[in-house]
């Protein structure tokens, strides 16, 4: 696998709906109402809609790196922050750019952007090249 600083990862697009968000939170045993009870999310917590679970965005950051690496590398570390909420109905974009290559270790800045282009979950991933 040839990797250079500045390489862009192919972007992935996600438009989760109520069903996917329900199944995700059920897989976790997460009963937080902001993810499925729209009147509660709006009237009590003041959100404009059902909130997409923060760690689901984190998962998509892992995925965008793994899909780009394929069998040629292994994701060894990732860190990310949830900077702003996102809501059912939005299409989110996961992507990244290679920022360092040292021997077999590569560093990638990853992001989740909303439809306005705002980075709502930035992060940094580290991977080891195998082949």
């Amino acid at each position, binding site marked *: 696998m040839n990797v250079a600083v500045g390489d862009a990862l192919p972007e992935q697009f996600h438009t989760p709906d109520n069903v996917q968000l329900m199944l995700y939170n059920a897989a976790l045993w997460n009963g937080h109402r902001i993810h499925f009870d729209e009147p509660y999310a709006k009237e009590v917590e003041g959100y404009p809609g059902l909130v997409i679970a923060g760690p689901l965005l984190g998962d998509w950051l892992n995925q965008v790196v793994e899909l780009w690496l394929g069998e040629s590398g292994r994701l060894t570390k990732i*860190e990310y922050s949830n900077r702003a909420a996102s809501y059912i109905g939005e299409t989110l974009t996961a992507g990244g750019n290679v920022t360092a290559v040292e021997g077999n270790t590569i560093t990638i800045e990853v992001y989740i952007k909303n439809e306005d282009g705002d980075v709502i979950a930035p992060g940094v991933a580290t991977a080891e090249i195998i082949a």
Partner: protein
Amino acid sequence: MSLLTPELLANIGRESEPKREIVTRRDIRKYAIATNNPQRKYLDGDEAPPMFHVPLFWDVVELEQLSPDGVSIDPLLPKFPLHRDMAGGLEIEYLNPIHPGDWLTSTRTLTDIYEKKGRSGPLIFYEVIMEIHNDDDELVIREKMTRILR
């Protein structure tokens, strides 16, 4: 004035009881499907995808242990003066792969509590480190979770 009293800060360093869970193909498949993961090895449950430890070690609590907003009360945490809990972020090291049939044990430590001024008032941040070992006593995952209270 700080929201963080010496009594509250004295909880830094508190450790949870270890939790032991078995990895099943069915749970891996559910997680891979719910996260839109396109990789066949995960959809078939042959191997756990990254972040599978999140559902595996999420607290399974009984209904009466949930607060009215549907959130489970983390017994590792002290009673904070702010209550709306938001995802802050994760830092995860992947050291060994996870497969169906693996027994994994996690221990969690509350490692920090601090305060920041947000746009609409004070925010409390807290950090919890989780270490996950397999039955060969190998460290499989180390995770630092940051959450925010507003």
